[in-house]
């Protein structure tokens, strides 16, 4: 049991969260709510499946096409600020939810991208996001949107630099941990 849990701890964690949420749903509205939750999840999965295929395809092909030396030079630890800024740009431009950009970030991780670069990519995806801009502008209005972008503009590169400076050397442990 123990080695199983150790090897599949992400599965175990997610399954535990599901059980807790299912319990909460049951407490709220009985089996009907539990069933509705399962249905809703599968519905969204079905709706996003075309996007998921594209994301996984992109992640797979990216690793085959982009040479490790190229990633090392442009996005690796040695790339420094250049790599972090490039990652911010890529993150800001890439569309889709976490099920789309995390497979791609995972592909970059296994191709040798640095920790600061990866954090900058994920953070810029969520703070610079160009594809989200129209919604934010339309619903919250120009003033809030503009001020929000202004205030959070420096965060993706700064967080990337900070993380690289503090924990940059942990990248090989992170890479190994995912490979297992």
């Amino acid at each position, binding site marked *: 049991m123990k080695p199983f849990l150790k090897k599949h701890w992400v599965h175990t964690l997610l399954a535990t*969260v599901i059980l807790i949420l299912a319990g909460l749903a049951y407490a709220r509205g009985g089996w009907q709510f539990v069933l509705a939750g399962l249905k809703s999840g599968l519905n969204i999965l079905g709706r996003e499946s075309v996007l998921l295929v594209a994301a996984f395809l992109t992640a797979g*092909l990216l690793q085959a*096409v982009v040479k490790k030396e190229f990633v090392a030079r442009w996005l690796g630890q040695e790339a420094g600020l250049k790599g972090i800024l490039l990652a911010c740009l890529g993150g800001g431009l890439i569309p889709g939810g976490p099920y789309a950009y995390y497979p791609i970030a995972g592909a970059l991780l296994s191709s040798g991208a640095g920790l600061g670069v990866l954090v900058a990519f994920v953070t810029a995806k969520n703070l610079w996001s160009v594809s989200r801009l129209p919604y934010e502008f339309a619903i919250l209005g120009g003033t809030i949107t503009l001020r929000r972008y202004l205030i959070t503009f420096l965060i993706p590169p700064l967080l990337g630099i900070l993380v690289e400076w503090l924990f940059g050397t942990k990248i090989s442990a992170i890479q190994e941990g995912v490979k297992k």
Partner: protein
Amino acid sequence: MSSATLILWCIAGVLVVMSWRAGPGTIQKGLELTWKTTRANALLIILAFMIVGFVNVLSPEELVTAWIGPTSGWRGIAAAEFLGMLLPGGPYVVFPIIEILNQAGAGLAPVIALITSWSTQSLLTISFELPFMGWRFTSIRWGLGLAIPILAGAVAALIWG
């Protein structure tokens, strides 16, 4: 088909052309890597979407609206950071909720802290992050990120408060 799907398929298309030009075997290698990643993560993705489904049904946005209300100041910013983590879903779900809070008088600083917290600290996102990046990455990114929404809210309060 959403524009995100369309753009990602275009990127995948460009990569297919690039692998085709990169020489024999590259496309096959890419597809093998695609299949390997898919197989390793399929169950996790399904589990993660089940979490999304339950969160949908439990609609924590009601909780968020009830808690944050028109509170402002430091308490409002701190509450916004915490509640931003619980906000589920994409921009078309979350922005209308934030707009309701905004109209209820939440104030600029908590609203900006809320958007930022949902962007960088969302708990639902972690279900998708863990399988691909591992716990070390998540704890570093999320842990350091905890300071960001509060800082963003505080700066907003200082400048426009």
